[in-house]
């Protein structure tokens, strides 16, 4: 029985278009940078209808940048973006290797999605708040966090700023206005609206940006966020990262519609679908959204179309549920490769320079790694003292916790 026939007589359950053993076939993208004009900053949400169903692009398949959305950045700035992206990729690679040796318990890469947080954070002001998922650690590079400090968190050593309390990748970086990442997916999305409203109440020029995965957009928090942002006109940028997968389920399991962006229309929030591997397009749309938020016109909803090239996490084996070469066929390509070609074609960037950059960053990452493990790692310790189990549960330690704390000290194993 074909699935259509089956669907007529029983519950319709969508399956991923391609599973292991299938030949992935994708249509070539029909969208080009010339398609969509920038709407006026005070437009009605309806005026973004075409933007939500199309795809905002600046860099075309050949690496050339043009169209209404070209942010006309200086070479220096684009190069800075490229450097952060390469940094993140090499950093991820090193951490995956360390995970395999037990130096950290778990890891999640941004492979194929490096562009997103980096381009978008670069488009913001330094006072803006960042409410990420575990796949936007790159924002921290833009905000100046040291790699050593990030590694110390991941390997849970005595220098971990969250004191070994959270799993790796659950970064907190208050100095960079980067909140503490929490495992329950989606929660940050609606919280971000509250942060934005507090900024508004205090009449500060601050905008909040948040992201949620295609999968997690099925959680209530996604809908709460859109609704509250719509009602109160919160200065917030609401992004859905559609990377095709939520662990083993395709985005067709997250929604019966294949388009996430246009959901903003129902809330009268302007919305855009953006090429998620296009640094310039992401930068440009985010700038537009920030400008609109700043002048009091509220939220923008953005679907970022990309592909999760890596495994979901270090515990995952995607070859069990998708063709292992699927990403090679996906038309969006690789964000670093695309920006590199753009720079080579338009500026004096070269393959040699790129290789040299990779080598320099590799050395930088190894140096940071060596520095970080001096303070211990998960395999060998030393760990933060287990006293940290009891501190900061409350502002002050209540008597019952004090009793248990004393009791624990009798039995300490770590």
């Amino acid at each position, binding site marked *: 029985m074909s699935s259509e026939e089956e669907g007529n007589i029983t519950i319709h*359950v969508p*399956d*991923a278009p391609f599973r292991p053993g299938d030949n992935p076939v994708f249509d070539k993208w029909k969208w080009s940078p010339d398609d969509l004009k920038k709407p006026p900053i005070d437009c009605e949400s309806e005026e973004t209808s075409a933007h939500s169903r199309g795809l905002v692009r600046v860099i075309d398949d050949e690496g050339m940048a043009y169209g209404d959305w070209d942010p006309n950045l200086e070479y220096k700035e684009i190069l800075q973006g490229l450097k952060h992206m390469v940094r993140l990729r090499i950093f991820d690679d090193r951490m995956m290797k360390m995970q395999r040796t037990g130096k950290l318990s778990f890891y999640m890469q941004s492979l194929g999605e490096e562009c997103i947080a980096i381009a978008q954070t670069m488009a913001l002001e330094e006072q803006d708040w960042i409410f990420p998922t575990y796949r936007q650690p790159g924002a921290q590079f833009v905000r100046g966090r040291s790699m050593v400090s990030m590694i110390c968190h991941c390997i849970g050593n005595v220098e971990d700023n969250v004191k070994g309390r959270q799993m790796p990748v659950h970064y907190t970086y208050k100095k960079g206005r980067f909140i503490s990442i929490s495992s329950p997916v989606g929660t940050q999305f609606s919280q971000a609206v509250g942060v934005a409203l507090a900024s508004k109440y205090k009449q500060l020029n601050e905008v909040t940006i948040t992201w949620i*995965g295609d999968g997690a957009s099925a959680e209530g928090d996604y809908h709460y966020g859109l609704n509250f942002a719509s009602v109160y006109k919160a200065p917030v940028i609401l992004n859905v990262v559609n990377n095709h997968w939520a*662990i083993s389920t395709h985005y067709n399991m997250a929604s019966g519609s294949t388009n996430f962006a246009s959901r903003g229309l129902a809330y009268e929030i302007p919305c855009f679908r953006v090429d998620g591997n296009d640094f310039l397009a992401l930068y440009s749309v985010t700038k537009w959204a920030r400008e609109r938020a700043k002048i009091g016109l509220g939220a923008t909803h953005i679907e970022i179309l990309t592909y999760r090239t890596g495994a979901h996490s270090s515990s995952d084996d995607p070859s*069990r*549920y998708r063709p292992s070469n699927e990403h090679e066929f996906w038309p969006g390509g690789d964000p670093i490769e695309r920006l590199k070609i753009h720079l080579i074609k338009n500026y004096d960037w070269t393959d040699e320079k790129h290789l040299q950059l990779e080598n320099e960053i590799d050395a930088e990452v190894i140096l940071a790694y060596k520095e970080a493990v001096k303070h211990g790692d998960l395999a060998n310790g030393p760990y933060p003292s*287990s006293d*940290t189990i009891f501190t900061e549960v409350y502002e002050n330690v209540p008597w019952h916790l004090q009793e248990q704390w004393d009791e624990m000290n009798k*039995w300490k194993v770590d």
Partner: protein
Amino acid sequence: MVQSVNSALSNMLEKDEDVILFGEDIGYFGGVFRTSDGLQSKFGKHRVFDSPLSEGGIAATAFGMGINGLRPVVEIQFADYIFPAYDQIVNEIAKVRHRSGGEFWCPVTFRTPAGGGIRGGHHHSQSPESQFTHTPGLKVVYCSTPYNSKGLLISAIESNDPVIFFEPKRCYRGPFYGDPHNVPTWKGHSEAEVPDSHYNIPLGQARIAKEGTDCTVIAWGTMVHVAEKAIKDSGINCELIDLQTLIPWDKETIVNSVKKTGRCVIVHEAPKTSGFGSELSASIQERCFYNLESPIERVAGWDTPFPHTTEWDYMPSPARIIDAIKKTQEE
């Protein structure tokens, strides 16, 4: 235990057409812990299927299916992620039989991996059983071995009441004796042999894992094995009771045991305050006061969030349990 859970699900899908399975990543992939591996291809996509990433949606859908004659078995990927479903479970599923004057009921089973010991940090380690034992209308089960996971899960699915079924994820591939460096498999364990065919372990029945005369030790989930190790090392002849069902708990087995030994230690990994140990301790005191030779001891997780790097200082260890057993012998 992964296979025994799978076998229970398979038996029930075979036996009852109204049984359907859904949850995050459980269909094509067979679940992140592999407990539903192969079931979709065996029983069809309309009976074993993936769901959107939405625990509240899963619970609400299960409610609807349940009152309309199906017997949904849903998976919440980690017990820590059951909270988006909490309202639907506590206010809806648990109460519908009562509030409808018995006209509707919802025979749904929520399976969920719980507990610590896998370096899961705050949100992949919690053991939230008492959040549900405090909810009238729900049955609460916590398995501990391959054998009881299958027999209990079958009874849970067959129950016409909603059941929250906790699976101790640290024990999926082997028992845990409190030493993270010792990672045994189930091979050779007395509870590892699991028949392929359907069998029941009735809800409400505890298991005497080891008979003894000098102290009753009550535990569930992973702590059954940690307590077993502690008892062995304590040199004291304890009776170990694997509670298995928390609501309704097995009054007879427990009361008889405590009346016999006169001493009692309760072990659980969830925080101590308002943990299910509090309920047991109070009830045992009410029923066995004149038989008790010493105060009832509780060994539990601390009243703090579950930590990541220092989890071995959080989870009850054999050493802490031995100390509690010895204390009960002092008076």
